[in-house]
């Protein structure tokens, strides 16, 4: 699929399909306010264009995310993008993606 943007926020999703890991053009995934307990490793490892992942208001903890293989790579991609953009969204909050350092400041 050519999927670049997917918004599934405010539903009752218990999980995201692993097939999203093959959406190699997926840039933005909004999944806030669901019933997620994690994200599939296939998504973080396979969706290599993903730079904006919103998971607020779910049951996912930062610790859980850190343990998902591929999360570090996702973070690196996202930080790389932010470094290039350099705008007011630097150090964006949890809703703007997942910023590890800011999360840990709280």
């Amino acid at each position, binding site marked *: 699929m*050519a*999927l670049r*943007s997917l918004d*599934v*926020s405010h*539903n009752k999703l218990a999980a995201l*399909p692993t097939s999203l890991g*093959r*959406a190699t053009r997926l840039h933005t995934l909004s999944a806030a306010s669901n019933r997620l307990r994690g994200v599939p490793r296939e998504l973080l490892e396979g969706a290599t264009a993903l730079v904006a992942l919103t998971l607020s208001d779910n049951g996912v903890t930062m610790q859980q995310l850190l343990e998902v293989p591929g999360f570090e790579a996702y973070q690196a991609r996202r930080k790389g993008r932010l470094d290039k953009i350099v705008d007011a969204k630097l150090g964006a909050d949890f809703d703007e993606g997942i910023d590890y350092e800011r999360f840990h400041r709280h």
Partner: protein
Amino acid sequence: MQGLHKLRCSHNALSGAGVPWTTLGLLPALEQLLLDHNTIAAVGPCICQATALRVLDLSHNALTELPPDLGALARLESLDLSRNQLSALPDSLGAVFDGLGGKGWGEGLVGSEGLEVEVRRIRGWVWRDFIKTRCEECQTTRSFATHPLSARPPTRLTPTLPTLATL
């Protein structure tokens, strides 16, 4: 209607039954379909045949499930399903027809002559997702010449399905 690019029916009181999914699935140029802010509880599977779709907005409805073959919309770039009642997403999302080197299915072949060749090539395979997308409930027999098959079969294949003969 064949040339319709964009259809916006946002902010109405459309129920799923009020949307002509069969017709929409047959519009070869339909790229944007905006049905947000309605009362749609179910999407007709025929929509998966509208393979020109790039933007599909079904946000703010009452969806509880989606057609399993939504992934057949190989050109879909933006999908908004927010503010519904979905408890799961189709396993096809992002995956079904992605083995085409960036091309959507349908870009591999154009014209009936190429189609015949392709059908011979895939005969014997079971293209489960494709067949299901054939809209059994609509009972439509479409010309696949205008929506030709992809150059390669998708990766998700199952070994048996007798109705493939209808191709």
